[in-house]
């Protein structure tokens, strides 16, 4: 799910090793990604989490943890 959000917002294919900033991500993209994840998963990652963890695999893992915490 997180991958398809990145793909849509960044308009490019995304692999685990990709970096948000190397794919052209900026503030507007970051906000769009966080809002889409909130809409689909009901948890909103902090903007800062994306800036601090710009690697796709790392960010997706954090979203996964966030979603699991929310359902506990």
């Amino acid at each position, binding site marked *: 799910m997180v991958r398809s959000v990145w793909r849509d917002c960044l308009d*490019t294919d995304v692999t685990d090793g990709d*970096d948000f*900033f*190397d794919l*052209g*991500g*900026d*503030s*507007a993209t*970051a*906000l769009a990604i966080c809002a889409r994840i909130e809409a689909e998963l009901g948890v909103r990652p*902090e*903007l*800062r989490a994306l*800036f*601090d963890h*710009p690697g796709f695999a790392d960010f997706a893992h954090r979203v996964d943890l966030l979603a699991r915490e929310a359902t506990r």
Partner: protein
Amino acid sequence: MTGSPWLRRLGRTEPDAQPGVVFFPPAGASASAGWALATGLAGTRAVLGVQYPGRGPRLREPHARSVRAMATATAAALAPDAHAVVLFGHSFGALLAYEVARTLEGMALPVAGLVVCGGSAPGRGDLPTHPEDLSDTALLAFLGSRGGTRPDLLADDDLMRLTLPALRADLAAGGTYVDTHAERTRTPVVAIGGAADPVVPAARLASWEAVTDTWWGTEVVDGDHFSFLTDAAALAAVLDRHWPTREGGEHEPRGPSATTPEARRPVQTTRFPRGE
């Protein structure tokens, strides 16, 4: 050249035609502000963006304290390929690009050229410097009045909490920058801007003539403060006219006299008379 945190490759292609472009973003912005330009120039020139600390991928780092400190670090990162790049700085970024050009010249590694955009030469007071101009409220008004930042981004508290400190640091650095170079630079300089720029009137672009021995004039397009950041074709025309590309080889700048009509793109080209 991209091993440094100060430089990021922008765009998804890696053309090797020279000279490439090094983009210096305006106050508060990240290298990513040049992504649209890089995409627009795709296949013609490599574009590097200067990534200032304290934002974007360098959010955890402290802000730089001065233009000179930023210039020293950026110049060191650019030094290996300085001859093969044109520096393109917007507003605050124009001041920094100028200081980087001077720093590299001082290292006997001059860049191919300098394009300054949407800003006056050092010491003309474009940027707010008074402490009361740097409150959160004042900075939000500053961003709003310049245009170029989407209203929904301006209204996002989380984003502004991350952005305003960077903007404040850049304005403080730019506002206290003093050009201490006694001699004019030998680097060719072109100043560009929007005819309807409400922030920096186009006539002020000519102030850059005083800093260089190699003044290549002013070029103005229809548009506002941010036109050259969104219109890659207009920038490409300026670059092609003055610094035509060569595949991986040495390049010889042609200067403003030898122009290629097909490369002309700006709606309006104005050259201010010398010695104005």
